[in-house]
């Protein structure tokens, strides 16, 4: 596969400067706010940050349009639709193994740059009003811009090292942002939990990166995804019981990174707790950008994963499991932001599922060495869903922000009857809920159908069922969320004051401040239209660069069962909405209604299947008792003590010698004589002692 073509023609210089700007501007905003504005005049910090992010969005759009006109329109020049804006060698490891910093353009990265900068701009804008009375708002904007810089850096990276470089920075930025209200112990604990858990996954990811680099001789995606690299890795290591295929181990290790960052099933525990951070943070990080990084990485390494037999199946399985589990749990949550967090988890599961189903199962059935050629249906569907989901999920989070701002509490049980007080939020949240539920005209419908189509097309019926079930459940909990927030009578819950989002930020302004609503309205438009408009563009262009190696995409609709499946999905969605309306609208169930009455399954789901408790047990009982304590004890009692014991022995010997020296002359003479005889005896007895000090010549 050819190396990415460096844009060298003069025509591209404007694109290159824009490419530089996309990265430099957020960094500039971080530096300006962090060092100078942050402390002195906080209001200015908000506006400058938003202005700079606006500029970043403009540059991103310029880059996108430039890329479209120069690269997309000229397939002959750029067959794989990829190009490299600029590149700088950071560290050379010998041979062509080197760590490089580059701005890499391909359909996926262009789409993501636009999405991330757009949402980041809106969130910055939104935060000006939201963080108006907060202490340290300057620091907030600095960290938000730092996060955006890191995320953009991650997206545009052309090799694994740069990805890992910004991967860690993203993790650190999210740690700082989650723990923004550092005086709240819950926030501090949540931030530490998020960082340590992602760090745990990143360690395995780093191992994967290093193994790839060492065995394939390069870190670049193009080389790594090429057939040569896959062949290189395709050897078994270790013998007998421990024999393992290097390729599958490397790919699983690489997937571990995505697993932790996108909070797939076992590693999802940090995301719900991350809601302790301010809402704009959740809107940006835990809906549209960071959590999607995992999906983006898997997409980047799609051809490599496809080459390994079982990795994609693992991806699909974890995706499906998370999707269903998260959707189910979301139905039982009472915290506003936790519902949305679990909903994000569920949607991420769907995206991973889409990526995972790209290998047609029928081909396996054929027996014999079948070259399972992955088709790119799943790849396109996943990225399409990323695109649409970013908009309506951030919209939901921002609207939740407005709601929390109004009722001063995160708890669903305090919300109610807000329909009249905040009409704009009502409309935008309604649009987002419908989009999320996946009803026809809204964005969610098209991207979800693509995913299910890809699964159906490649014969993964179990995953199709999981997708449908998730769709239904999503519709149900979104309706529950919507009805309980906007309809019914206003309710106050006893414990609401305690965990209010703004600790002590009792301000009374308008329930629906204009500055916060504007982004909502802006976001409503794409959540409605983007699905319908973007569908064709995505199907045509959004292909992995090695598209020639994978089967051509036959249009999904052509598949026999497709129309039926669409009907079933829409029916399920409608039934979900119906039951939601019935239970919470008509029968007036309150949010916590089913807590004590509901079946045991409801209670288990409400406690998130006790995964948190399992982790804490593992860490406290197993980790500390069997690892940390013995290590600490051994350090003190064995290693350090060894020095003191040595001293003790010497002291005892010294005391013995001084007792022997009792001053008697006769004892001295006797010792002298016996000593002389002993020297003679030792010398002649050939005992090792004298020769021990003899020469080693």
């Amino acid at each position: 596969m050819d190396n990415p073509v460096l844009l060298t023609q003069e025509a591209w210089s404007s694109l290159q400067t824009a490419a530089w700007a996309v990265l430099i501007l957020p960094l500039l905003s971080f530096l300006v706010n962090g060092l100078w504005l942050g402390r002195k005049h906080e209001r200015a910090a908000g506006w400058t940050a938003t202005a700079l992010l606006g500029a970043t969005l403009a540059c991103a759009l310029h880059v996108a349009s430039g890329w479209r006109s120069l690269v997309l329109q000229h397939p002959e020049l750029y067959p794989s639709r990829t190009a490299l804006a600029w590149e700088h060698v950071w560290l050379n490891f010998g041979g062509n193994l080197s760590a490089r910093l580059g701005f890499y353009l391909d359909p996926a990265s262009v789409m993501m740059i636009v999405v991330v900068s757009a949402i980041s701009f809106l969130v910055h804008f939104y935060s000006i009003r939201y963080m108006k009375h907060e202490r340290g708002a300057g620091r907030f904007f600095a960290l938000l811009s730092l996060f955006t810089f890191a995320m953009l850096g991650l997206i545009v990276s052309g090799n694994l090292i740069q990805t890992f470089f910004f991967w860690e920075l993203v993790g650190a930025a999210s740690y700082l942002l989650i723990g923004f209200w550092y005086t709240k112990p819950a926030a501090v604990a949540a931030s530490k939990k998020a960082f340590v858990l992602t760090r745990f996954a990143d360690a395995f990811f780093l191992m994967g990166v290093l193994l790839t680099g060492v065995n394939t001789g390069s870190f670049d995606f193009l080389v790594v995804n090429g057939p040569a690299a896959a062949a290189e890795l395709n050897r078994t290591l270790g013998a007998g019981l421990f024999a393992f295929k290097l390729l599958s181990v490397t790919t699983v290790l690489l997937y571990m990174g995505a697993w932790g960052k996108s909070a797939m099933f076992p590693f999802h525990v940090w995301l719900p707790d991350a809601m302790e951070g301010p809402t704009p943070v959740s809107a940006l990080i835990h809906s549209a950008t960071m959590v999607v990084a995992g999906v983006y990485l898997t997409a980047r390494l799609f051809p490599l994963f496809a080459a390994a037999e079982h990795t994609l199946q693992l991806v699909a399985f974890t995706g499906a499991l998370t999707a269903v589990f998260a959707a189910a749990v979301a139905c039982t949550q009472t915290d506003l932001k936790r519902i949305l967090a679990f909903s994000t988890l569920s949607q991420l599961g769907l995206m991973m599922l889409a990526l995972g189903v790209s290998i047609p199962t029928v081909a396996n059935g054929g027996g014999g060495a079948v070259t399972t050629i992955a088709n790119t249906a799943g790849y396109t569907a996943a990225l399409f869903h990323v695109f649409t989901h970013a908009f309506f999920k951030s919209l939901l989070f921002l609207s939740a922000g407005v709601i929390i701002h109004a009722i001063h509490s995160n708890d669903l049980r305090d919300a109610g009857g807000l329909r009249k007080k905040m009409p704009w939020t009502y409309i935008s949240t309604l649009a987002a809920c419908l989009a999320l539920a996946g009803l026809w005209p809204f964005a969610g419908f098209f991207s979800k159908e693509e995913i299910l189509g890809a699964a159906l097309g490649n014969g993964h019926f179990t995953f199709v069922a999981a997708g449908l079930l998730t769709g239904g459940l999503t519709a149900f909990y979104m309706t529950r969320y919507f009805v309980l927030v906007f309809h019914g009578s206003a309710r106050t819950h006893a414990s609401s004051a305690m965990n209010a989002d703004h600790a002590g930020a009792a301000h009374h302004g308008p329930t629906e401040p204009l500055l916060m609503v504007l982004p909502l309205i802006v976001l409503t438009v794409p959540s409605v239209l983007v699905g319908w408009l973007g569908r064709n563009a995505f199907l045509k262009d959004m292909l992995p660069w090695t598209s020639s190696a994978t089967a051509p995409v036959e249009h999904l609709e052509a598949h026999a069962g497709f129309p039926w499946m669409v009907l079933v999905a829409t029916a399920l969605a409608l039934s979900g909405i119906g039951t939601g309306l019935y239970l919470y609208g008509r029968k007036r169930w309150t949010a916590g209604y089913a807590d004590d009455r509901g079946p045991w399954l409801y209670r288990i789901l409400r406690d998130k299947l006790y995964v948190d408790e399992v982790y804490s047990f593992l860490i406290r009982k197993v980790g500390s008792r069997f690892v940390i304590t013995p290590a600490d004890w051994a350090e003190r009692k064995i290693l350090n003590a060894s020095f003191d014991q040595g001293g003790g022995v010497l002291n005892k010997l010294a005391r013995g010698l001084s007792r022997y020296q009792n001053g008697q002359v006769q004892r001295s003479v006797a010792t002298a004589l016996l000593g002389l005889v002993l020297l003679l005896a030792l010398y002649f007895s050939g005992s090792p002692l004298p020769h021990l000090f003899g020469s080693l010549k």
Partner: protein
Amino acid sequence: MSTPFSTPFLSAFLPDLALLVLALVVLTTEIVFRKHQARWTARVAVAGLAAVLILLAALPLPSGGVAYAGYQVTRSVVVWKQLFALATLATILLSRSYFRNGHSLRGALANPGAFYGLLLFSTTGMFALVSARDLLTFYIGLELATLPLYALTALQPRNAGSIEAGSKYMLMGAFASALSLFGISFLYGAAGSLGFDALAKVASAQPSLSAQPFLLAGVLMLLGSLGFKLAMVPFQMWAPDVYEGAPTAVTAFLSTGSKAAAVAATTTLFLGPLNLPRIDLGAIFALAAVLSLLAGTLGAMRQSNLRRFIAYSSIAQAGYMLMAFTGGEGSEAAARIALQYNLLVYGTASFALFFVVSLVGRSAPETIPSLRGLSARSPALAALLALSLFSLIGIPPLAGFLGKFLLFAVAARNGHYTLIFIGALAVALSFYYYMRLLKEAYQPVQTAENRGAPASAVPLSPIRLSLAGKCAAALLAILLVVLGTCPGMLNFIASR
């Protein structure tokens, strides 16, 4: 044969004769100077010794050295003699103040004439010992070097310890000299005659030591008697008691002069005629060195009496010096250089230590706790103490390190790597017990208010240094640093 009064006779004998005459003159000063007897005797002695030193340095000596009637003086022998003269000079300077009443808790020293006379007699003995060419002169020299020390140890009548130490030292010494007599008789038996060259001939003629029982018996017994004087391990039991009992000046002389004489004797004998390729004495010396290091370290670790501490540290230093004898074939020159340099360095460090001990010992019992707060009482003295201790340990910038490095180099030449490692470990352990002194010196005096304990027993009177004391301290400090860094002195000794 050269006529008695030709130049070789002069250059060979003159310094020794001068020393002898000086000893006699010192004895008679008591009669001449009725008043201020102590001071004048000391002055005469110092002047005399200076003359001897000048003679040693100035006398022309043919490179091959001069041989005369059982007396052989080569250039390296002259260096030995210079070392002895320096040690005696320093002892005399140190002992001057002890003749005044109230200068030490142990009571004043009696008749100075006898004291200095005996000291000089002992030095004459050392001179003879080093330039001996046959066993008889060697034996007489050894006796003359040791006998006066018994008397010197017992010279403080009012201090009970002195008599006890003297008699113990005498008993052990007599036994050792009997042992050396026995040894020499066997060597005479084996070699047929007393001359060193005959000894060397017979030693190298026979295939291996075990084939010559007499030679082996003689060698071992002589090693025993020299070991006693060196305070080597099996024979070191006397040292702590005698160092504690004897007057401070005598202890100083014991730990420097007498030890130097012992090392010189062992060198003339075991690196001279008896340095035989097949007599693998290296293993015995190595074993003795290790045991001495062990005994010295263990002894000094828990010692609170300053004098006994110095005794054990000198046993350990003897251990280091024994390493030079494990060099085996062809290492005589290197061993001599290493030993002479180390003795010079060890002597300087010891006298610096004794200088401090004597000043501290005026008002307080000579124990380690009495060093407390020395840095407060007189920073210069504390600095000198620190320098001398670091040199005794063997930490680089100071002279001790270079001395020990040379000794270890000789052992390494013959491949005794385990021995070097144990030696280096002993250096590490020595850091521990030497630092106990420094810790006391730099311990901030716990005045009542900040520790709550009663004010420390030792009265905190600042120590005033007389002018002579100041320049002596300065000289010692500079010497310790210069000897460590500048190669001048080492090249001088090596060129001899």
